[in-house]
């Protein structure tokens, strides 16, 4: 069965005819060609597919696109500033060497952005807990944690 799905992605209204069983991540990657959102596991474990739905981090591989009907979606492509400079959280990942292969990074950044809104000056412990839904096979997490602490502080400072 095909359905019409409409939502806002990175501020732009988009809509398409899709099969009802289309996952949100499939819609984002294959219909919209926004391939920054990754699929690492497809079983809700790794968080590489994390996007914001109405401001909250969710795993886009775990819902069908229709569940986002009418919603405001933010993907990693919508995070950098309009003039092309990095968002403070992205900058913090760069400065703290918070990535190696980079596969998990979009999901890490999207989850961290949502987390930082409620934690302007987080402890390492809080950051580690906030990352329960994100896996990284390269870094050992240490520098990711450092990046998020720095990014959260930078976000609070730039307000």
């Amino acid at each position: 069965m095909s359905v019409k799905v409409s939502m806002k992605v990175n501020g732009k209204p988009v809509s398409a005819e899709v099969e009802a069983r289309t996952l949100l991540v499939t819609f984002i990657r294959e219909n919209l060609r926004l391939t920054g959102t990754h699929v690492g596991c497809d079983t809700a474990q790794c968080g590489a597919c994390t996007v914001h739905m109405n401001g909250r981090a969710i795993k886009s591989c775990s819902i069908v696109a229709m569940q986002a009907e009418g919603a405001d979606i933010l993907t990693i492509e919508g995070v950098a500033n309009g003039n092309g400079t990095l968002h403070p959280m992205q900058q913090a990942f760069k400065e703290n060497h918070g990535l190696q292969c980079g596969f998990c990074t979009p999901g890490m950044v999207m989850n961290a952005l949502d987390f930082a809104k409620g934690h302007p000056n987080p402890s390492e412990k809080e950051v580690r807990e906030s990352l329960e839904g994100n896996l990284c096979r390269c870094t050992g997490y240490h520098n990711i944690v450092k990046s998020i602490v720095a990014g959260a502080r930078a976000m609070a400072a730039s307000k």
Partner: protein
Amino acid sequence: MYAFEYHRPSSSKEALDLAAKKSEGKFLAGGQSLVQAMKLRLSSPSDLIDLGSVSELKNLKVEGNTVLVGAMVRHAEVAASPAVQKAIPALAALAGMIGDRQVRHMGTIGGSLANSDPAADYPAAVLGLGATISTHKRKIEADKFFKGLYETALEPGELITQVSFPAPKRAAYMKFKNPASRFALVGVFVADFGGNVRVAVTGAGACAFRQPDMEKALAAKFAPESVANIKVKSDGLNNDLHASPEYRAHLITVMAKRAVEAALK
């Protein structure tokens, strides 16, 4: 995932009418269990009736001594609610321990209870607090709700609308997490209603169950030492690669003791 027809009703009535017509259909709440099961082709409903736009199922409030949670309230909302944190802090804490942040932003109490995963957290609170589960046609006591592995008292097409939790004098939930899935290997919810004590266990059996020996001992004296020496029988407990029945039985006592300690703090 097999194909299905998608519906987006805006009221419970509309959702129920659809459910009555589509006998192979299923309600869709957060999708955190159902969409996963469909991807694995463990579930193949003909129709999905998405409850995401049914606003009457989204209320969360505290009335007097009762916390009322609508079926579509997300785990993150219960965890972050100041009213719930004040009325039943153990319930807010439990909701904040479910899965991870992203799962808590989507997953709902109605979906969790209808699913009745043997390792889910909410069943421990529902049973431990003696909550009442309201559906569109009746009220079901917690003691009569959980029937077995992924099995509940719900009839086909029956819609959970709300769960009401009475506030205890004190309570706590202790969860020994499966480090990979974050589900409960064993979780124990202890609630003291002033003389009447309830102890509910999740993760250990086919579904959540009460532990009467501990309830009796704690009713006589609400202290960690009352449960510390209670040996739980391992007969019938879950056996998988994560833990043997004997280990789970042992964990029940350890978690119960820690829960009593936490409730007394």
